[in-house]
């Protein structure tokens, strides 16, 4: 019995006693290491009291009610589902990350701010230029990526690169559109476009790169092992830090309307040396890309 009394006493010590007021309500779509990494960066940039809601842990999490009752000063939404769950939060500022749809939603939600998942076109195009690519193929869906393509076209003109664009409305069109790029391009630039790049079309990109001997530049480390020549991927820790700095600005009184929607400020640059070697692309040229990078 003595042991059990000790056990109960220790249990009581470990249990949170009373709900406390907090600054930041963190709404996370699911338990994923990608979100955890972003959150780690966020926490490292600012110390604030917080409450974490992981949506997959709840049958129905009423975020609006939680915001109304707890009155956090800020909501941090991690993931697409989290972003949707905060749709009816009108007054409290929201910082969203790790959601592909953030760009479209931000137009109609004045209290929504955040960091997108698309790295700015300039470092990609600088990288492609260093590969001596003059004509770069892009397969995209206009509903998902037209806003980004506008920026890319502008930057491409500045760097004297021709973007050979192929629009798709469904993943089924991707293979045919990729084939139509044969002989037309010196490189392929893969976008994080969930219509143009799917599990079914992934192999077609890699096969095109191998068979046509054109380097493929992608957006995530995982594609290197599959045959991409180089990637510029999100630095998730820094993404979190960037959001943490925004949070600090907002909590210090900066109006959301004065803060523009951001693009990630730091990219991690990685290459597949064997693919580059096979394609005859010199490494030293790649390493001159002017972005904050690590390998």
């Amino acid at each position: 019995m003595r042991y059990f009394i000790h056990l109960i006493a220790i249990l009581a010590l470990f249990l949170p006693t009373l709900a406390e007021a907090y600054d930041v309500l963190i709404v996370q779509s699911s338990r994923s290491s990608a979100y955890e990494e972003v959150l780690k960066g966020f926490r490292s940039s600012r110390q604030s009291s917080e409450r974490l809601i992981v949506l997959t842990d709840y049958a129905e999490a009423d975020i609006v009610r939680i915001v109304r009752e707890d009155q956090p000063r800020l909501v941090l939404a991690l993931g697409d589902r989290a972003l949707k769950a905060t749709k009816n939060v009108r007054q409290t500022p929201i910082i969203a990350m790790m959601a592909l749809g953030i760009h479209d939603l931000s137009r109609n939600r004045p209290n929504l701010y955040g960091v997108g998942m698309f790295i700015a076109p300039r470092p990609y195009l600088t990288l492609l230029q260093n590969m001596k690519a003059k004509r770069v193929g892009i397969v995209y869906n206009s509903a998902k990526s037209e806003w980004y393509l506008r920026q890319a076209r502008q930057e491409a003109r500045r760097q004297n690169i021709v973007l050979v664009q192929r629009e798709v409305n469904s993943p089924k069109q991707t293979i045919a559109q990729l084939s139509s790029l044969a002989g037309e391009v010196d490189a392929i630039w893969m976008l994080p476009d969930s219509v143009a790049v799917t599990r079914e079309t992934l192999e077609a990109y890699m096969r095109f790169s191998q068979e046509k001997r054109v380097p493929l530049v992608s957006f995530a480390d995982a594609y290197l092992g599959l045959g991409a020549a180089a990637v510029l991927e999100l630095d998730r820790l820094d993404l979190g830090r960037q959001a943490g700095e925004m949070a600090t600005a907002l909590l210090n009184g900066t109006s959301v309307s004065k803060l523009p929607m951001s693009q990630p400020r730091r990219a991690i640059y990685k290459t597949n040396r064997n693919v580059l070697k096979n394609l005859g692309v010199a490494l030293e040229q790649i390493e001159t890309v002017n972005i904050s990078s690590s390998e």
Partner: protein
Amino acid sequence: MTLFIKSHTVRTILAAFCLLFSLIPFTAWGQEESDEETLDLLNAWQQESSTASRTPKPLSHTPENITIITAAEIEAINAHSLADVLEIIPGLQVKQLGGPGSSTYTYIQSAGFNHTLIQLDGAPLNKIGNFSDVGMVPARIIERVEIIKGSASAAWGPAMGGVINVITKSPDKRTIGGSATASLGSHTTADTNAELTGTTGRLGYYLSAGYLGSNGLLEGKQLHSNNSYAKLTYDLPTNGQIWATVNHTHVNQGENYTDIVPTFEFKEKSEQRYLDMTLGLRRQLTDRLGLELTSYYTHRTRHAYSDWLIPPGPWDYNKVRERVGGGNAKLVWKSDQHLLVGGVEYIHEDWNYTNLLDQTTTKNNYNRIGFYVNDTVKLWQLAVTPGIRLDYVKDEEQFSPSIGATWQLDEKTLLRGYTARGYGYSNTGIGSPNSEKIWTTQIGAESTAVPFIWQKLTLYRNQIWNILDTRVLTPNLPEERIALGVEYEARTTPVFNTSIGAGYTFTDLTRSSDGSQVKGSVRHTVKILARYDDQTYRAVLTGNHTYWNHIKEPVNYNGSYYGVLWDLHLGAKVWKKENNSLELFFSGRNLFNGKQYADELQKNTGRWFEGGARFRF
């Protein structure tokens, strides 16, 4: 085959978790797909992988029955050694002869402990008697453990029961980081350790040292051990890596078997030193072809002094020295449809046994060379894995073929099938006259079709022959046995930061000659795990029941068979700042004083408690 025996704890436990799982679907809900799409896009649909065929490949292409456990799960159960980690794995039976760090026998799906191959950093841990002491591997250095349940000789050689592959921690990507941990429990059971890890330029390092000791959670089971571990990695400029590891352990154990059985009273003291070193190179030769070279050297010594108490006097004073050296070279070729692995493995082991009372010495040695090749062929939703291995051991030639397949039925369900021939030696050092042989066949399915529950079912049949049972006094002739078994695992996704999981394994082991049951081998194993984790507070409750099937003939070992061992582990991060945190933790082990052992000389520990703190930076 009798599935249910007389009134048994297993029934109660099974009924409880069947009820629990049957209720969960009604509390489940639909899931948004867009997050999965985004994460899949970032991960390029690359899934969790295993190294069952000696190189990483997706679990969905792995036909073997695999369980993987990670560092986070290990930390959640406040584990001291690999033995504590294996305790919670469905299908595994662990017999710890004392508290943390003490000698431990590991069984996979009822196969003998000396048929489980344990690998640490790619080097085998098995020593004389083919015994691998998983109690000697500190939990703090482990990044991931992959367990292959069932014969895996086609890739790994003598591994009739399966393989436990321990992958140690890689250097942190920061320049410097680490942790310091201290815990204290009943009978002055203490575990203090520190880690230092980081990367500077191309050089990565992971250094760790610790003390694990106890004045004895069982009568006369003292243990004091020191361990130090170092791993260095160097990234080559040309797409490759060199690594080296050194693991040193010094253990003093003592005063065993005193006052347990009045007619069998003796005391024993032993001192053991282990030094394990590995050196490896991994290099991508072309975009499709990779090379990996691994070499290892192990030096182990054990001094043991056993004295009779009545009448007092020396019984056995001995010194054992073992040296094991070996290497493995393999080529991996990848294409869109194939993952081809081929390699050669060599191992040399020599040992000296010296009787310190009469100064006589016995020497022996053992050589093995094996050649293996396997392929994973992807054909739409089907992945087929054929493999063969040829080993030359002493005067014997061992041929181990296998073929397996996985079929992704739909997005939520995967079917598996695997059949293989394998072999093993119950004692490499002394040199048993013949190897034991196995033919295993396994089929199973893994599914998330029931919302929010992951389930896995495996049926297996093992035909084992040429077995010499040392427990049978006379006659000691080779015999054949058939094991028929089923294993079911399930776990839920977290709800309110809480998840539950359970596993049940049943094995019916009979002699082919007369159909009689083999007593003393595990028949039922039940594992239960409930977890809460909100990133600040965590709690894990585990339940473990192993039914060792009564042994009464020819010797009654006076076992205790029906106990369930319940452990509770709690943790709280009381301070967090950037990369720094302070965590307090507490464990209550065997909360209800369960008794679960097949032999009164090998009793399990009773209820005990410990608490501690961990600082990370």
